[in-house]
């Protein structure tokens, strides 16, 4: 009996501990955002981050980022960055745009390891930064399930 208990306790420790250490944190996300923005101020607005508020499967969560911009040579969106709080790494994607795009909108599907906040940041041609965030509740997490 006791050896079985010890085994179970040991197994639980092995499976749980490594991933707790490998998680990004809100602080890691803030640091990753500062790497992109530098010292520039990030303002809320102009960006729309469209994600479902509640998802069953964190392995494929649809995400659409659109930014209000005329997308002209003089005033366009140069880049869209997406970050998360609690996946193993804070980066999600970096998209490069130009006036050739005509509309500053991208869509993809991402993995979410836990219920968390996702942040989208848009960089304008004049070097300004705008942001939007979305809170997503995930019932089945991605990334951390091992193959058994």
């Amino acid at each position: 009996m006791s050896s079985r208990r010890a085994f179970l306790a040991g197994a639980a420790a092995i499976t749980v501990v490594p991933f707790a250490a490998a998680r990004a944190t809100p602080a890691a996300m803030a640091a990753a955002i500062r790497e992109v923005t530098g010292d520039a101020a990030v303002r809320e607005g102009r960006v729309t981050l469209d994600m479902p508020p509640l998802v069953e499967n964190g392995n494929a969560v649809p995400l659409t980022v659109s930014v209000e911009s005329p997308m002209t040579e003089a005033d366009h969106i140069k880049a869209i960055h997406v970050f998360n709080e609690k996946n193993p790494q804070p980066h999600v994607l970096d998209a490069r745009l130009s006036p050739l795009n005509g509309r500053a909108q991208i869509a993809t599907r991402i993995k979410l390891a836990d219920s968390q906040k996702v942040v989208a940041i848009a960089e304008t041609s004049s070097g300004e930064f705008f942001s939007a965030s979305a809170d997503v509740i995930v019932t089945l997490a991605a990334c951390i399930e091992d193959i058994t």
Partner: protein
Amino acid sequence: MTNVLINAPKTAKSGELIEIKALILHPMETGFRAGTNGRLIPRNIIERFVATWNQTEIFSIAFSPAIAANPFVSFFTVARQSGTVRLRWTGDEGFNVEEQIAITVG
């Protein structure tokens, strides 16, 4: 390669805004999961997607392991001249796939 799905209009008016959607089959293994032997499965992801229209880059995106398996991307572009749109995915383990579509602008 047949493991790519691209959805884009075949014809467009000059100056028209068109959406290009692309899906590619790929596991996007994060490198954070353990396999049946308890060891971590090595990371294998697509790192970069680039779209060019007649050799001019119109869009690029850098992926991270947080992109879902079988990455889907959608973006917009203004149709300027007839030609070839090339979509290229590159990533770990020498992954390099290019697909092209023809769009007629009239």
